[in-house]
C-alpha cells in the first residue's frame, strides 16, 4: 500500500515537474522568439517619449519693474486620429471655430499618413477660442455625442508685448520659431531663450526623479523708463506732424553712466503683429534709426570740433575771429549757413550763431592730424558698443582714404561729409558733461536668473578731453543757448546744447531743398542728469533746427525733469545750501 502511494506521488511529482518545465521552456521560447523582439521594442517605445523642453523665454522689464515683454498661453489644437468618429462633423466645427477652410481640416483628419497617430490642426490658438471649443466638447459629452472625440489642446507660451508698439525699436520681436530679431530680443536671444533640451521622459513613475529640470530663460531689466519712453514717443509723433518731417529719432540718456532712459524712432511696429515688419521698413537699418541709420548731422558736430580746439589750446572761449562770410579750405570756399559775414566773434558767438566759417578756421588752426585724432577719440566711425543689435558705424573719412580731400577738414568741422548715428553723437558729447570721460551707452540694467541678480556696470569709453575743457565747453554751450534765446530753453532749468541743420547728400550733390535737423542738449548744466538728442528728417515747415528740433528738445526736457523728479535749479540750490 505504501509502495503504491509512493509510485503515485512520484508520478504526480514528475507530472508537475514536466508541466513546470514546459512552462519554463515556453517562457524561454516566447522570450527569445522574433515576435518577442517586436514586443520588446514596442514596450520600449511606450516606456516613455522624447520631449523637447523649451524653457519659458525670459521676460523684459523697464527700470521700474513694468513688464515690456512677457509670455502668454496659447494652444496647439490637435486630434488623435484613432479616436475620430466623425471626420466630417469635426472638420466642419473646427473650420468654423479656427477660421480654417473645411477642406484643409478634413484633409488633415482623413488624408494624413497611416502611421500618424496625432495631427496638429492649428497652433497658437488663443484662449478664448479654446475655451469655446472646450465648452462645446462638454456639451457634446453630456449629450453623449462623439463628434469631437479625439480633439485635444496642448498649452504653451508665446511671446507677448503688453505695451504693443511702445519701445518696439529697442525691444525687437520674437517670431514663432522662438528667434529674436532686432534690439534686445536679438542681442540677448541666447540669454532670453535659455537652452532647449530634448529629454527622455519615462512613463515609469519610479524614474520620475530622473527627469532633469530645465531652467527658464534669463529675465532682463532695462534702463528704459517706460513712462518717459511713452512721452518721448508721443512728442516725436507730434513733432513729425507739426513740422512735416518724414521720420525721426529721439534719445534720452543719463550722461553720467550711459543708461538709455528712452529711445524713440519712427516708424514703430506693434510687436504682437510682427508680420507688419515688411510693410513698415524697407531695410533693417530703419528699424531703430537712433542706432541703425547714420547721417550727416551738421552743426551738432561743432561741439566736438570746439572741444578738440579748446583741449589742444588752439582757441579759448574769448579767442576772437573775424568772420568774413567765407573761408577757403583745400581750394574750396566754405560759407556760413546764411552765406553772410558775421564780423568779429568770440568762440561762444561762433557756437551761438553756428558759424561754419569760424569752425572751419578752428579746424585748420588745429591741423589735420590733431582734428582727426580727436574725432577718432570721440568714437566717430566706430560703433558705440551699445547692447542692441543692428548698430551702424557711420563714416569718418580720414587723410589717406581714397575719398578724402583737403576740403574735408573744413567741412567735417561743421558736420558735413561725415556720417554718424544719433547715439554716436551722444556718446561723444557725454565727455563734455562727464568731466571729459565718455560713457558707453547701454540698455541693460540688470539680469535675473535663478533668483540671482546681476547688475550691468557702467563703462567708460575713454577720455578724449580734459575735465577742464569739458567744464569750459559746458559753460560756453549754456551761454550760447541763453544768448540765442533758443526755443530749446526750459524755464527754471539751465540747459546747454547745440543745433544742427544739415543738407542731405544725394548722388548729384547736396539736396538744396531738404535738411536733416538735429539738436543735442543736456541739463541741468551744473549737474547734468539727462542728455537728449533730437533728429527730424526733412521737416517741411522749416528747414532750420532752431525752429524745429530745438522746441522738440525743450518738450522732451520738460517731460524728463518731471518724470525723473529733477527739481528746478533754484530748488536744488536751496536744498544744497541747507
Amino acid at each position, binding site marked *: 500500500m505504501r509502495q503504491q502511494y509512493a509510485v503515485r506521488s512520484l508520478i504526480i511529482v514528475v507530472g508537475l515537474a514536466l508541466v513546470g518545465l514546459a512552462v519554463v521552456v515556453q517562457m524561454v521560447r516566447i522570450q527569445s522568439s522574433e515576435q518577442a523582439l517586436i514586443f520588446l521594442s514596442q514596450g520600449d517605445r511606450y516606456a516613455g517619449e522624447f520631449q523637447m523642453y523649451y524653457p*519659458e523665454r525670459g*521676460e523684459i*522689464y523697464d*527700470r*521700474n*519693474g*513694468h*513688464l515690456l515683454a*512677457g*509670455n*502668454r*498661453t496659447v494652444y496647439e489644437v490637435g486630434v488623435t486620429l484613432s479616436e475620430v468618429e466623425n471626420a466630417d462633423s469635426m472638420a466642419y466645427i473646427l473650420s468654423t471655430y479656427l477660421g480654417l477652410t473645411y477642406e484643409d481640416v478634413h484633409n488633415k483628419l482623413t488624408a494624413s499618413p497611416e502611421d500618424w497617430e496625432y495631427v496638429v490642426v492649428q497652433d497658437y490658438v488663443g484662449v478664448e477660442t479654446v475655451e469655446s471649443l472646450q465648452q462645446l466638447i462638454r456639451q457634446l459629452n453630456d449629450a453623449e455625442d462623439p463628434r469631437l472625440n479625439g480633439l485635444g489642446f496642448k*498649452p*504653451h*507660451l508665446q511671446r*507677448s508685448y*503688453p*505695451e*504693443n508698439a*511702445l519701445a518696439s525699436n529697442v525691444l525687437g520681436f520674437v517670431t514663432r520659431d522662438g528667434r529674436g530679431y532686432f534690439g534686445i530680443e536679438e542681442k540677448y536671444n541666447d540669454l532670453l531663450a535659455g537652452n532647449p533640451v530634448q529629454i527622455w521622459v519615462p512613463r*515609469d*513613475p*519610479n*524614474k*520620475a*526623479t530622473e*527627469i532633469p529640470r530645465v531652467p*527658464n530663460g534669463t*529675465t532682463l*531689466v532695462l534702463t528704459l523708463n*517706460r*513712462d518717459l519712453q*511713452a512721452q518721448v514717443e508721443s512728442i516725436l509723433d507730434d513733432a513729425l506732424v507739426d513740422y512735416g518731417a518724414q521720420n525721426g529719432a529721439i534719445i534720452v540718456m543719463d550722461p553720467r553712466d550711459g543708461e538709455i532712459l528712452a529711445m524713440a524712432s519712427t516708424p514703430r511696429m506693434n510687436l504682437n503683429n510682427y508680420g507688419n515688419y515688411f510693410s513698415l521698413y524697407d531695410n533693417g537699418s530703419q528699424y531703430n534709426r537712433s542706432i541703425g541709420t547714420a547721417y550727416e548731422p551738421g552743426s551738432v558736430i561743432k561741439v566736438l570740433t570746439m572741444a578738440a580746439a579748446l583741449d589742444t589750446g588752439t582757441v579759448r572761449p574769448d579767442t576772437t575771429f573775424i568772420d568774413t562770410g567765407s573761408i577757403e579750405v583745400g581750394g574750396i570756399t566754405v560759407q556760413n549757413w546764411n552765406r553772410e559775414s558775421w564780423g568779429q566773434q568770440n568762440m561762444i558767438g561762433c557756437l551761438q550763431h553756428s558759424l561754419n566759417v569760424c569752425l572751419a578756421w578752428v579746424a585748420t588752426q588745429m591741423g589735420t592730424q590733431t582734428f582727426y585724432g580727436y574725432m577718432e577719440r570721440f568714437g566717430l566711425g566706430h560703433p558705440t558698443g551699445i547692447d542692441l543689435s543692428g548698430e551702424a558705424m557711420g563714416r569718418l573719412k580720414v587723410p589717406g582714404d581714397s575719398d578724402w580731400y583737403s576740403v574735408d577738414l573744413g567741412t567735417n568741422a561743421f558736420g558735413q561729409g561725415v556720417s554718424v548715428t544719433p547715439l554716436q553723437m551722444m556718446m561723444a558729447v557725454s565727455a563734455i558733461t562727464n568731466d571729459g570721460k565718455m560713457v558707453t551707452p547701454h540698455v541693460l540694467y*540688470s539680469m*535675473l536668473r*535663478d*533668483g*540671482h*541678480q546681476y547688475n550691468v556696470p557702467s563703462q567708460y569709453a575713454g577720455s578724449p578731453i580734459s575735465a577742464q575743457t569739458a567744464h569750459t565747453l559746458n559753460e560756453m554751450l549754456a551761454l550760447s543757448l541763453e544768448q540765442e534765446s533758443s526755443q530749446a530753453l*526750459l*524755464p*527754471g532749468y539751465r540747459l546747454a546744447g547745440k543745433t544742427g541743420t544739415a543738407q542731405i547728400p544725394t548722388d548729384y550733390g547736396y539736396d538744396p531743398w531738404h535738411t536733416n535737423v538735429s539738436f543735442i542738449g543736456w541739463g541741468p548744466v551744473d549737474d547734468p542728469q539727462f542728455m537728449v538728442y533730437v533728429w527730424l528728417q526733412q521737416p517741411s515747415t522749416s528747414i532750420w533746427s532752431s525752429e524745429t528740433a530745438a522746441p522738440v528738445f525743450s518738450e522732451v526736457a*520738460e517731460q524728463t*525733469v*518731471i518724470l525723473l*523728479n529733477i*527739481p*528746478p535749479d533754484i*530748488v536744488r540750490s536751496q*536744498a544744497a545750501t*541747507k
Partner: protein
Amino acid sequence: MQATQIIHAYKQAPWRVQRQWIGAFLLFVIGAAMIAALYLDVTARTSVAGREIQELRSQITTIQRENADLETQLADLTSTAVMRQRALELGYRPVQPGELDYVAVPGFVPPEPAILLAAEDTTPHVQTQPAEFTQSLLEWFDERLKLGGPR
C-alpha cells in the same frame, strides 16, 4: 550508554530530519515572502511617490505658465495706454512743471522695483533636503555617538 543511544536515535529519527527540512524550507519560504512583501510595499510606495512627483511637476509647469500668463494680463491692464485712458476718464490731466512742489528728504533713497527686490529674496538655498535623505548609516551612527547616544 543506553541514554546516549536513545538520544542519538532520537536525533536521527527520519521524521525529525524531515521536520527539520520542512522547517528550513518553510523558514525560507516565509523569509522570501517577507522580502517579497517588503519589496512590493517599497516598490508600490516608490511608484506612488514617483507618480506624485510627476503630477507635482506637471502642476508646477502649469502654474508657472499660468503665472506668466497672468503677469502678462496684468501688464496689459496696466499698460501706459490703458492707464492714461483711465486717468483721463477719471478727470486727471498731465501735470505741468509749474504745478510741482518739491520736498527735499535727506537720506531718501528711491525704492528698487519689485522685480529686483524679489530676486534678492529668492536666492536659492544650497541644501534643502533633510539630512535623513542624504546621510549614510555610518554618518548617522557617528552623529548619534557625538551627540551622546540615541535621543
